[in-house]
């Protein structure tokens, strides 16, 4: 099974990377950029008996490792 986990910073948490990228895009002349926030994606292949089990395993993975739940949110999509 293929899945994608997306981890993003919670709203309000400072994103220094995003801020620097925003500045760089502006100075490269990319028009109209108002804000950039950077997150992570994990493309995961896993063996699971069904979608539900896979989802549960990935949520567990997020809580334990993939996301820092103090400052990050995560989303799990099992693509099948």
């Amino acid at each position: 099974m293929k899945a994608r986990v997306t981890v993003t910073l919670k709203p309000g948490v400072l994103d220094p990377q995003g801020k620097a990228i925003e500045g760089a895009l502006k100075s490269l002349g990319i028009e109209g950029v108002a804000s950039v926030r950077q997150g992570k994606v994990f493309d995961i292949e896993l063996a699971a008996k069904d979608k539900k089990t896979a989802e549960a395993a990935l949520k567990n993975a997020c809580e334990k490792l993939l996301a820092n739940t103090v400052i990050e949110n995560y989303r799990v999509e099992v693509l099948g």
Partner: protein
Amino acid sequence: MKSAVIVFPGINRERDMARALSLVSGREPEMVWHAATALPAGIDLVVLPGGFSYGDYLRCGAIAARAPIMDAVRAHAGKGALVLGICNGFQILCEAGLLPGVLMRNTRLKFICKEVHLRVERSDTPFTRGYNAGDVVRMPVAHGEGNYIADEATIARLEGEGRVLFRYVAPDGSLDPEFNFNGATHAMAGIVNEGGNVMGLMPHPENHVDPAIGPTDGRGLFAGLMEHGSRAA
């Protein structure tokens, strides 16, 4: 030999580099701000120092590689003149397309600062003429992303054309995966471009030049460059 050290926001080994250049060459380099669009007149050697340009945000060296000064650096390299990128400077050169490949996260994912052994692969280049081929020298490393990779064809060309100038080795000079601490392809620590005038090197020769502080194996690199410069002049 006149050299210029490019200063990007967030770079932090520019002073170390300037000091090493002054110490070995007796001449202070020009410090050039990233927003400049031209190099000062008469520069022979351009150095992109180590550090964390733009905090290493996005990808190491990515934002600095697009700074205004980089067109001038590209033109300088295009003329066959010397460009040296150390650590973050190496990453910037790759991002700017002046060197092939990419520096990925160290295999153990950690930033590592320690002294390593390097084997000098050839001595007939401006960057290594201060050493003998096969010399094993000590230099410090301090990076989290120095794991050099490139596609197979590029690696084959680098090897085939003798463009690998330094490799991570065991103290006795042998290749040993245990001493290839960041996982670089074929233990590559320093490579040059096709023209042989642009080098990227992960370790920090500039921190090993002063006998009051420690080993001085980094001197050879700068001394070689100076010698090359005086010959060329």
